[in-house]
């Protein structure tokens, strides 16, 4: 069994754990994003119904939902713990910096700020879960749309708050940045590189990043403007 211990503590093992968990989270993000898209339905009643239906579908999974949530916790946990471990090691490996800081490669800014975008996302994630998962009913100001408070009411309420919406938009830009580098990185770290396919993977990864990051941000902005213009 010592080989498992060796692997998860090796530099490549740590990165591959991040890659695998990151890769799984990509799937989660996509599913989540598709659900979010119901918020773009123009008619309010239909929108609320569709959105709540998505939420209810998840809730109806009951036990399975807990399993899925536990899975997500593990994915995020492994991803984050390894990110912090490698970050600390990387800082120690380059204890002294250079007088002149410059970059020579072709990679753009997102690749150099992964730890910052990631940290911001972690903080945002806490807020996100607090307000949307556990926040229902806690905050008295929420006005039910249709009798009892639904998740749609919670979302509408929070997205009408300008500061909250602003944090969300920034978080989604961070997510886009994170994915811009992250998707291609998953493949490289797992060794899935090929002269024919890597350019395609890189391109698709950036499209995906733009879709998830940009798409979610647009949803938030749309919700905010809709409330603001009421």
């Amino acid at each position, binding site marked *: 069994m010592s*080989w498992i211990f060796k692997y998860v503590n090796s*530099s490549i093992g740590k990165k591959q754990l991040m890659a695998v968990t990151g890769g799984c989270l990509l799937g989660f993000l996509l599913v989540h994003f598709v659900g979010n898209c119901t918020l773009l339905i123009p008619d309010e009643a239909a929108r609320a119904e569709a959105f709540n239906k998505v939420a209810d579908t998840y809730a109806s999974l009951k036990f399975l939902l807990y399993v899925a949530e536990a899975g997500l916790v593990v994915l995020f946990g492994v991803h984050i713990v390894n990110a912090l471990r490698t970050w600390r090691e990387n800082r120690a490996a*380059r204890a002294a910096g*250079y007088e002149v800081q410059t970059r020579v*490669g*072709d990679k753009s800014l997102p690749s150099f700020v992964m730890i910052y975008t990631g940290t911001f996302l972690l903080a945002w994630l806490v807020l996100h879960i607090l307000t949307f998962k556990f926040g229902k009913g806690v905050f008295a100001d929420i006005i039910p749309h249709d009798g009892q408070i639904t998740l749609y009411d919670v979302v509408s309420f929070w997205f009408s708050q300008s500061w909250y919406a602003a944090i969300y938009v920034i978080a989604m830009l961070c997510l886009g940045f994170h994915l811009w580098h992250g998707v291609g990185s998953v493949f490289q*770290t797992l060794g899935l590189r090929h002269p024919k396919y890597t350019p395609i993977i890189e391109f698709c990864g950036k499209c995906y990043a733009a879709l998830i990051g940009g798409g979610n941000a647009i949803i938030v902005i749309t919700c905010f403007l809709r409330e603001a213009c009421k």
Partner: protein
Amino acid sequence: MAEKNISVTLKVWRQASADKPGKFETYKVKDVSTGSSFLEMLDILNEELQKEGKEPFAFDNDCREGICGMCSLVINGVPHGPGRGITTCQLHMRSFKDGDVIVVEPWRASAFPVIRDCVVNRDAFDRIIQAGGFTNINAGSAQDANAIPIGKADADAAMDAAACIGCGACVAACKNASAMLFVSAKVTHLARLPQGQVEKRKRVLAMVAQMDKEGFGNCTNQYECQAACPKEISVDCIAKMNREYLSATVVEPA
């Protein structure tokens, strides 16, 4: 193109030894021919320092034609200075303008401690090769060289990776001081050839373990190493090593 003479200001890292703190010193070097190499310019600096009764500046160099891997200066933040696919000794003063300020620093990595000024200790690289960067073959026991045909594509890819000169620019360029490009170049070189495939799993496990032990950082796929590499070794090697490492972990019995 006619060469001309230029004068430059150098901001050079001076450090008496590993355990003493270092600092930058500023020197002027006048009337250097743009046809001189960067190291020849440093030779001039040293001759002048000596005339002024000052200690010469220490920097590693040997072949001065870009193959031994000894020279190792970070010039204006870039390992081996401006220009792709060259070592410091192949950098010429025509890459600079009259009046330029040039900052010269050593490779910065915890695994490469400074010995003096811009000379660093790269023994860690040797220890990584010792861990497994070879084929287990004794002199005299080889079969005929043409006994195993090797496809041209494999031979060429092995050669691409084998071109590594072990200078450490990849480590110097990486913000994590990761040695992945160096290690993966050797792993790829040998794993690409039938002669090296016999022990490829054992090799990659041993070399990565040693690399980690030396205190190099982790790869975060920014590919600065590839851009700084004087032999333009590709990060394809890193992907290959990631793959080899994973499969070795899964398959190797112990």
